[in-house]
């Protein structure tokens, strides 16, 4: 079992899917000759040629709109937006067309495309390179929204996304890209879109997170076990939309206490929807208010203060302890 970074794992998934299915196309800015600014598409041009691995002009709506046309034809475009902070230039193409073509044509035309884009802070980047605004897409009926957290689930989810018959926005946590390696089995794996994963079992507290925030979350869970004798159940959301609220509910009903962690701004963020679903499903089981540990409602600062902005294991731990202290 080779140990891979998330970049390697994503690259492997692309190679494999392009190999198996000649309708899979890759397009975007600098994805060809340069192999993508994070090298996720490295080697694809050599392997599959410039008809399938397309360096496009610098135009995000152009990339997405062209992908929509290709997908309607029956291809499976996997387009890259260089940073999620630039995906809003294509917002209307996603909202008005990718998300609606199946609906509008009553199933006659479909848009099986994937939009890959790096999100998340913590890599000392320039303005617009560190945002987490997955809630925009999650609030858009017709789109699916996926965020992996490790090399292994990144590969599995990207394969599932490419094979999915509907448009999938695929956020890649760039802080995880090369942060660590994980064993990824040789044989193909997929992970169902729409399914969360319980990655740590526990009975005292439920922690719900995803993407780059899984690391501080798991770190906090370990600390709780070591220092507080508390076993936290940790859920990796994986698919932001459609949200797997049954898995959340099951856990919340068991533990009665929930903390949600994400780096997106708090207000109107993904955490709010998770709270609302839990209230709908599990209100009578809750023993403490659900807490959100999130980015603040400000523009994520340039890198000098990024650490203070991003939820840390310490912040998660503090929120977990407060939640545990609430009277039962």
């Amino acid at each position, binding site marked *: 079992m080779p140990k891979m970074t998330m970049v390697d794992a994503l690259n492997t998934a692309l190679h494999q899917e392009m190999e198996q299915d000649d309708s899979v196309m890759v397009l975007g800015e600098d994805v060809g000759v340069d192999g993508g600014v994070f090298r996720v598409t490295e080697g694809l041009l050599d392997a599959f040629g410039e008809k399938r691995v397309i360096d496009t002009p610098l135009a995000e709506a152009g990339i997405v709109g062209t992908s929509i046309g290709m997908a309607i034809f029956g291809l499976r475009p996997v387009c890259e937006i260089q940073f999620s902070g630039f995906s809003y230039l294509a917002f209307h193409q996603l909202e008005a067309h990718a998300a609606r073509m199946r609906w*509008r044509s009553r199933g*006659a035309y479909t848009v099986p495309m994937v939009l890959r884009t790096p999100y998340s802070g913590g890599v000392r980047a320039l303005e617009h390179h560190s945002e987490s605004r997955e809630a925009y897409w999650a609030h858009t009926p017709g789109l699916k929204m996926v965020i992996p957290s490790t090399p292994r689930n990144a590969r599995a989810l990207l394969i599932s996304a490419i094979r999915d018959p509907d448009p999938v926005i695929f956020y890649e946590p760039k802080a995880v890209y090369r942060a660590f390696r994980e064993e990824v089995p040789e044989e193909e794996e997929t992970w169902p879109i729409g399914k969360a994963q319980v990655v740590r079992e526990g009975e005292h507290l439920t922690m719900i997170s995803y993407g780059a925030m899984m690391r501080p979350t798991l770190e906090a869970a370990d600390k709780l076990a070591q220092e507080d004798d508390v076993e936290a159940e940790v859920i990796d959301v994986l698919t932001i939309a459609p949200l797997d609220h049954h898995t959340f509910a099951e856990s919340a009903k068991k533990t009665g206490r929930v903390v949600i962690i994400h780096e997106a701004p708090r207000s109107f963020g993904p955490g709010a929807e998770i709270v609302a679903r839990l209230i709908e499903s599990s209100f009578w089981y809750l023993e403490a208010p659900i807490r959100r540990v999130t980015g603040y409602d400000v523009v994520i600062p340039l890198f000098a203060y990024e650490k203070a902005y991003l939820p840390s294991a310490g912040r998660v731990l503090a929120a977990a302890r407060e939640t545990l202290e609430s009277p039962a």
Partner: protein
Amino acid sequence: MPREVVDLPYQVEYLSILDEDGHVLDEDLEPEIPEDRLLRLHRTMLLARRFDERMLHLQRQGRIGTFAPVRGQEAAQMGIVAALRESDWMVPSFREQAASLWRGQSLESFLLAYGGFYQGNELPGNQMPEGSRNLPVAVPVGTQPLHAVGLSYAIQYRGQDDVVVTFFGDGATSEGDFHEAMNFAGVFQTPTIFVCQNNQWAISVPRSRQTNSETLAQKALAYGFPGRQVDGNDILAVYVAAEEAAERARSGDGPTMIECITYRLSMHTTADDPSRYREEEEVEEWRRRDPLPRFQAYLKQRDMLSDSDIEEAEEEILGEIQDAIDGAEERMEELANEELSMFDHMYAEMPPYLREQRDQLARELGRKEGNDA
């Protein structure tokens, strides 16, 4: 060298074949279209005209909702699609009733869609029959040409020789997406035909205030491919321009932009009152260039059509339209209680939370269809 003029290999050509009375201006340019096809074109143009008028009445009576009349632009649309194959793709905006009728869309499907039923997009023979190559209406102005570029890229990738035509208005040329589509098409030399229906107005904004360029056709020069103007009320000229563009595209020579100079004789949509922003004299002037009598005059000169043929066709068409309305209204009644269909076709498979919402609506509507429709 100090001050020199850069050599640019461009010019914009204007093409017309019929004068306002339907006389051929230059016989060398007259396309060879078989008589039966010419007559079919006439028949469809007449149908589009009468259907437009009838839809306007229905809208005024509250029997359908808002739509965008096509009156005056029939030649500009039909000349294009008449020059294409069935296997070519059409990517319309929201005013292409004439082109869509030619490409096989049924009257009922329009009536249902403008009656507020998305099932209008489901009927057989409508804009999206099995294997259809007409995309549905795109309301957000200027956003659909990119889909045409993606489709045509895919066609080329698959080694096919179909082409893709996309329609948009003069106003649409101001949108950023138009620019990105033109640029992608130029870079990838896709088999795309960009057809601008320059009907002189974008709601209340006249062509002259939409952009400061002399022509819209010249915008193609910014992307390194040919742009041309054509008299859009002259179906023969439009046909010839489309044929030439399609040939270029099929033989791998890339995209073309065609600016059809035409006029919206009616209101922008049924929600619009054009008297607020344009003079009746202007409309009157363009009425004299109406593409329908002009095409009829041409066919008469060629002895293909007589007044009594027209009368006969008119009568037939009125019947056809009435049947369609009757059919559509019956269908609308049948469909009136199918609200639960709003959950269909959001995704290939309905996710659990949507199923739960659907069940909730079903309960509310007091119906039983909750679980496995």
